[in-house]
């Protein structure tokens, strides 16, 4: 039963590492323009799920469909070219580049210069540098990063690096944005900023977003639907309110406040 209307269809994927079953028959769909949160205790398999969607991990069974098209055989860089962008739980920026260059690097799929035209520079390469710089500056403005644009990202604070990483994902102009714990380890103010940015992206660009988040308060505020996983299995799916009442979810988080 392929839902061709769905932006993303995770079709019963299973992923194992030796003896560890990271994901077992996990399946759900995300509609166009929806924000879906994926929750679950530590080690539940949330990051593995995102890695399977981007193609970094290869599930042994099941399929990933984007706009109804089976992208399971595609390598990660081709999936990015189809409009999937992500952020990483443990920030994975290009440490020695400036914030601006990190964003410009994500324009790769929208640019054309090859080794030869890059080396000549004048003409095509220069023109597209300027045009893409304009797009990137819009993102810099939107994420309020004007004063750090030329800073080497390795020297930035944790919160700012998370923000640059969101900017890099946006610079790719994705149609599906995957955010792996975008607010983890931030202070309250930074979390509020990040939540505001995510909601803005969703509203203004009608972006489809899948986000992993531990903070149930934030999940309630931001997401329209929630998928809960535990020990690699999907244990519940529904609106934030339904999830809060779900007995499997409560059991999975036993002893924790949700």
């Amino acid at each position, binding site marked *: 039963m392929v839902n061709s209307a769905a932006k993303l269809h995770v079709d019963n994927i299973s992923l194992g590492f030796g003896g560890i079953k990271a994901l077992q028959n996990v399946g759900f769909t995300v509609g166009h323009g929806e924000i879906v949160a994926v929750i679950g205790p530590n080690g539940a398999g949330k990051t593995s799920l995102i890695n399977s969607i*981007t*193609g*970094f991990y290869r599930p042994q069974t099941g399929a990933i469909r984007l706009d109804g098209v089976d992208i399971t055989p595609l*390598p*990660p*860089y081709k*999936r*990015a*070219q189809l409009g999937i*962008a*992500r952020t*990483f739980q443990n920030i*994975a*920026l*290009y*440490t*020695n*580049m*400036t914030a601006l*260059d990190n964003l*410009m*690097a*994500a*324009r*790769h*799929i929208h*640019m*054309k*210069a*090859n*080794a030869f035209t*890059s*080396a*000549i*520079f004048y003409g095509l*390469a*220069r023109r*597209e*540098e*300027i045009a893409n*710089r*304009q797009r990137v*500056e819009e993102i810099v403005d939107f994420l309020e990063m004007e004063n750090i644009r*030329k*800073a*080497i990202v390795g020297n930035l604070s944790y919160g700012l690096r998370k923000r640059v990483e969101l900017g*890099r994902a946006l610079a*790719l102009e994705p149609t599906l944005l995957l955010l792996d714990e975008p607010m983890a380890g931030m202070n309250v103010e930074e979390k509020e900023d990040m939540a505001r940015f995510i909601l803005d992206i969703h509203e203004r660009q009608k972006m489809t977003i899948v986000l992993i988040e531990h903070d149930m308060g934030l999940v309630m505020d931001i997401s329209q639907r929630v998928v809960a996983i535990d020990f690699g299995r999907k244990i519940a799916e529904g609106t934030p309110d339904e999830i809060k009442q779900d007995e499997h979810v409560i059991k999975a988080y036993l002893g924790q406040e949700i």
Partner: protein
Amino acid sequence: MSSNIRPSGVFDTSYAQDIALNRTRADKWLSNGLFLLLLLLPLLSSDGPLGLNIVPTLWIGTLNRIAIFVIAVQGLNVLTGYCGQISLGHAAFMAVGAYTGAILGRQLGMTFWLALPIAALVTGLVGLIFGLPSLRVKGFYLAMATLAAQFIIPWLLRYPLEPLTNGSRPLDVPVPTLFGISFAADGAMFYIIIPAAVFLSLAARNMLRSRVGRALISVRDNDIAAEQMGINVFNYKLLAFFVAAMFAGIAGCLAAYNTNSVSLDTFLLDQSIAMLAMLVIGGAGYPLGPMFGVTLVLLLQQIIIPSLIPPLNNVLPGLLPFINSVNIYAALSPLIFGAALAIFLVFNPRGLAHRWEIIKIAWKLRPFSH
């Protein structure tokens, strides 16, 4: 890093100005002026038509050698500095360029101007083949795989290809000519080698500031993220190997035509390691790194150390009786060279180019240092 610091009072008014190499008119005059000055040097030497003897011809020869190695190390910088792939086979790639150029010129009577680009292309393709292991291995293991190039290529040139290469014996190389002008003297080769070095350094610099350069650095800084941000990591690694080998091939070919002879023992492992040392000392990943590193190392090897040996020779035999004054040069120069490199690296672990950026920032910020 210096790119984020502007001279006080200079503001960019467009993105075009922000990405320009020379942001102010003064910068532009300075770099063009320096280039012109450089081009004047041979005219002031005894090789020049004016018969002046202001610049010693020895300098011209040294500048040629520096420029040749700048080209080779620029290539290594693309591969190691930008793309983060270590190669221990760079000298072997130079050998491919040198022998291809020499054989095309000698056996086939091809003009130098055609032999050079063909040598570059052939070397690039050879580099591509030896870059294939980078699909599967990284870092230390890749270094070992490139070491294979450093053993296989000289072996091939020495034995199976001996009828073409003259094996272990040097091979004579013709003199390049253009419209009847012969480029025999150092002062003439200068006008081939220096523009080539400037042109290729600019090409590397341009690549760095555009799409391809950022992709290469992305691969170096975080290949997992790069792949998931739409960059075909393997293609870019191969591209880096191709470009690096091509630069080495051009350098090798120029070296062959510069000295009018090729000999295998100038392209061995010690030379590969010396080029890595030049890159690291100059600053890997900085556009100016190769210039600084090559200049320092060659000046050290060819001018500074040789001039240190005679005075040392007078003191040492009494001090270190085991050093025989007959082979004192062979005994001491590696020692002094090694010590000098170690000291440079201790004080400039990120290379001279990085130190240079710090100095430039301090200079640009004056008089407001805060």
